[in-house]
């Protein structure tokens, strides 16, 4: 009996199509919350893809400490995206991502709408897909982000499409007046999928000192407590566009991933949970496969529908 079940489990695939790229499982890491180092702690063969930390054109040092801390709201980070530039990335990091054996999605950042294309030109077709991070809340303290302006998003994506044949995922910012407009702009620009979303901008104050808890004052909030905020954004985006939506924010379990499926996501990214539970990514990927098996389907939408019916 148990051998049969195991055979079915191994055979099950939960494929997701992102443009020309097929992922065998809908679970992947969130940018900046994953490194090839994690492969030393156990196999990652079951996850759908890896996603790299955002690569910028220029070398960057990142923010001053404290760069990360935790409060009752979750994890605060103001790492500030240190980067060794596309060349540094290709030489040192990329080969280590490749070794993991699943598709590599490279995250790319820029400070002008034309900037993404420049980075992509330097990266060539090294990656299987690119994720455009239009929404990093940490780098500039004031200033409206590219990700808050649908016109800028569409322009950035359209220019990036010219620079590469690889599918593009646009990772949106959560703090915008109309995320539906931002998603439509990404789709119109030629994106193959959107990811919703980056961390939630915050200014945590340390009550002991009454000073900002982060060296950079402003940071991003992540972890399970932001899930209801991001679920709404995923729902709004999935109403607005036809391309796949990748849900990202506070996923710690297969059940959390299904919440995102229930509001329209096709795939998910796991960030902060990988810090508390370094095997979280692999576990969630495997648990979703098991759940699909148990419900006799290869569609997570169908799993959700069955769960909804069973509690009616």
């Amino acid at each position: 009996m148990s051998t049969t079940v195991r055979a079915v489990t191994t055979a099950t695939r939960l494929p997701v199509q992102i443009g020309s790229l097929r992922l065998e499982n809908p679970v992947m890491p969130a940018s900046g919350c994953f490194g090839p180092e994690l492969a030393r702690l156990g196999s990652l063969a079951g996850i759908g893809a890896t996603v790299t930390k955002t690569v910028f054109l220029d070398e960057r040092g990142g923010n001053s400490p404290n760069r990360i801390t935790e409060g009752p709201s979750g994890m605060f980070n103001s790492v500030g995206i240190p980067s060794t530039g596309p060349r540094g990335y290709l030489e040192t990091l990329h080969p280590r991502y490749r070794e993991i054996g699943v598709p590599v999605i490279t995250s790319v950042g820029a400070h002008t709408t034309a900037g993404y294309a420049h980075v992509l030109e330097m990266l060539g077709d090294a990656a299987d897909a690119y994720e455009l991070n239009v929404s990093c809340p940490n780098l500039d303290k004031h200033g409206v982000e590219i990700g808050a302006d649908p016109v800028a998003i569409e322009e950035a994506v359209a220019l990036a499409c010219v620079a590469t044949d690889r599918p593009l995922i646009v990772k949106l910012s959560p703090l915008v007046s109309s995320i539906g407009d931002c998603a439509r702009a990404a789709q119109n620009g030629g994106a193959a999928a959107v990811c919703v979303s980056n961390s939630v901008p915050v200014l945590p104050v340390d009550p002991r000192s009454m000073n900002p808890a982060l060296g950079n004052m402003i940071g991003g909030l992540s972890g399970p407590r932001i899930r209801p905020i991001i679920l709404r954004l995923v729902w709004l985006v999935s109403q607005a566009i036809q391309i796949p939506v990748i849900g990202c924010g506070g996923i710690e379990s297969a059940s959390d991933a299904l919440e995102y499926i229930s509001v329209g996501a096709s795939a998910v990214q796991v960030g902060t949970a990988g810090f508390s539970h370094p095997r979280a990514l692999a576990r969630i990927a495997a648990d979703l496969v098991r759940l699909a098996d148990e419900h006799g389907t290869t569609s997570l939408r169908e799993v959700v529908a069955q769960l909804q019916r069973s509690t009616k």
Partner: protein
Amino acid sequence: MSVIEVPAREVVRPLPAGPQPDPVADIARVVRHEPLGAGNHRLVLHSARIAATALPGQFVMVTIPGFVLPRPMAIHRRRPHDGTIELIYKVAGAGTESLALSAATSLELVGPLGRPFQLSSAQKNVLLLGRGIGVCAFMTVAEDIAARGGQATAVLSARSSAGLIGIDDAVELGVTAFTVTDEAASSDTASVGRTVIDHFGADGPDGIMVCGSQRLARLAVELGRRWSAPVQVSLEAHMACGLGYCHGCALPCDGDSEGLLVCADGPVFALERDGRSQ
């Protein structure tokens, strides 16, 4: 605000990267978990692999139920014969407070992590300077020194005698230990300096390891110059991954490229007087 307290006129340099044991993600049985007084707690965990492979000065990341970030904790003692490691932690904030109240029978952890203290085979006579829970960073050095038949001397410093850590360990490992406290007005750098100079005389130790106090680190550098002994310091920084990929633990740096990562380039660094600021 930062917990990273590199002494002002001293610089840290990464030690050469040597071979390191592979870290493991483990669910470790809680073997012992008890208060030691002054807010300190002993936590003995069963993790055979970490106990068997950890190098002196390495640390683990301990996941506290209900918290998103694991807490970095030095491996205070390794007991490979029964597969356990011992941590000692101080209640510092919400996470350690919750850990102290927790009745969890197992805890998730990752380790061993970080670059260890470097002990050349020639080094047999080391001075360990530690304050508060900083002592936990180097008791594994004393273990290795004892194993090779050398002699470790330690200054165990704390605010009060109730907060002193490592006395039992020092006895067990044959460490010559000086305990100093603010309470007894014996913990200021001048007194500590006099004590160890008296103890060692002209022939100083062949290595100095320090953790837990900026003032002790400055003293360590001075003593290192006096005796031409290399100084190593174990630093703290807020951490998320402990593995080197999150970039959360970088030391402050000027310029465009990133500073050292405390988890991967440290936590143990060489400590020297800054040539520029003299």
